[in-house]
């Protein structure tokens, strides 16, 4: 008769009769340990590969209108690890807690009035039905004022819970009365790295 250990269910002989067949019993134990180690190895490998979604902007987005929100569509992503550039959003997350990093580069020329606003928004949205998206669940913001022309970079970081249906969008507001041109530069990246599961 074969017994099993409590947790890992490893087989061992529990009678003298099986003791006489030590070779086969030893093989059964060795193969069970072998199989279990494969599972452990796979778990370690999976653990080392934290899900990460990255979208970068390959080509600058030119001539953005001032004083209105613009969706920074990441369709020109040059690198998407688990992202979905075809949908122009980051989505389809393995549910869990994520650390999100955003850097948005923007360049403008012309007269820059004092106190002009630069606002970056990461909008998180959840689906309410299978075929449409709901209202925004959360919006994380970086907002500051710039007084000079040229390129400025705006960083935004936060930790939040993301699900399989969560969609994250990047929006930019360039408030200004004097500049003649605004470009979201290629120094723009959105990334989300999974910290842990949905605890």
């Amino acid at each position, binding site marked *: 008769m074969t017994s099993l250990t409590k947790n890992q269910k490893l087989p061992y002989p529990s009678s003298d009769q099986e003791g006489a067949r030590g070779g086969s019993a030893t093989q059964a134990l060795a193969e069970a340990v072998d199989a279990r180690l494969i599972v452990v190895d796979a778990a370690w490998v999976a653990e080392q590969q934290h899900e990460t979604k990255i979208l970068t902007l390959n080509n600058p987005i030119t001539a953005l209108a001032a004083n209105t929100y613009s969706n920074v569509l990441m369709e020109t992503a040059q690198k998407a690890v688990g992202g979905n550039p075809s949908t122009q959003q980051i989505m389809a997350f393995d549910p869990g807690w994520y650390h999100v990093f955003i850097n948005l580069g923007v360049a403008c020329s012309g007269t820059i009035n004092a106190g002009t606003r630069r606002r970056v928004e990461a909008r998180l949205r959840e689906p309410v039905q299978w075929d449409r998206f709901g209202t925004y669940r959360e919006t994380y913001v970086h907002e500051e004022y710039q007084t000079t022309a040229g390129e400025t970079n705006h960083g935004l970081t936060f930790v939040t819970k993301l699900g399989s249906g969560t969609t994250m969008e990047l929006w930019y507001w360039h408030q200004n009365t004097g500049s003649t041109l605004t470009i979201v530069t290629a120094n723009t990246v959105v990334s989300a790295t999974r*910290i842990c599961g949905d605890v």
Partner: protein
Amino acid sequence: MTAFTVTQNLPYPTGTDLVQDMPIHMRRLAEATDARLSVQDAAIVESRNPPLAVVRQKLDRSYATTADPVYEYDEVVVDTFALADLAEDNRVLRLKKIGWWVIGGYVSNRGAGGSPGRQRLYLDGTGGMSYYQMSQSNHDGNTSAITLSIDTICRVSNAATARVRLLGNFSGTSIASTVLSDTTMLWAYWMREL
């Protein structure tokens, strides 16, 4: 006489043991292997779910700008390792495991003014942490909202005393005496051993 492997301490019979005792020896080996694999499983689970906490303040709270305000929180969003104890101190997260941590914060303030003015945000640690102070700045020509966020990595060598908190700093001309903070967050999660 039972002997043991050098590194994992797994038992095995030696030449003086009887063949008919093989079931006993195999059971010992199976149970020792079971225990060792269970430790491994626990380590993987712990690695997959590192200590993580996020605390938040969602109601307006006023802070004086004359001294660097220490931001406060009234809600625990997530906490897997009892890092937050808002009743004891609603301004800190306790970093209760030795290692490298990712720490960060997020603040939305309005009403600072300044012509021009500057706001900074920095993380301050105690109890064995190094790399504890970072800042981010911006210019503010009026009293509208300023929203900043920062991250850094810190080294925790004393899990009993390590704390992190988020502070503001205001400088410039004609800064208002107080600001109103409408959203404040502080987070920390353990990344790896030292």
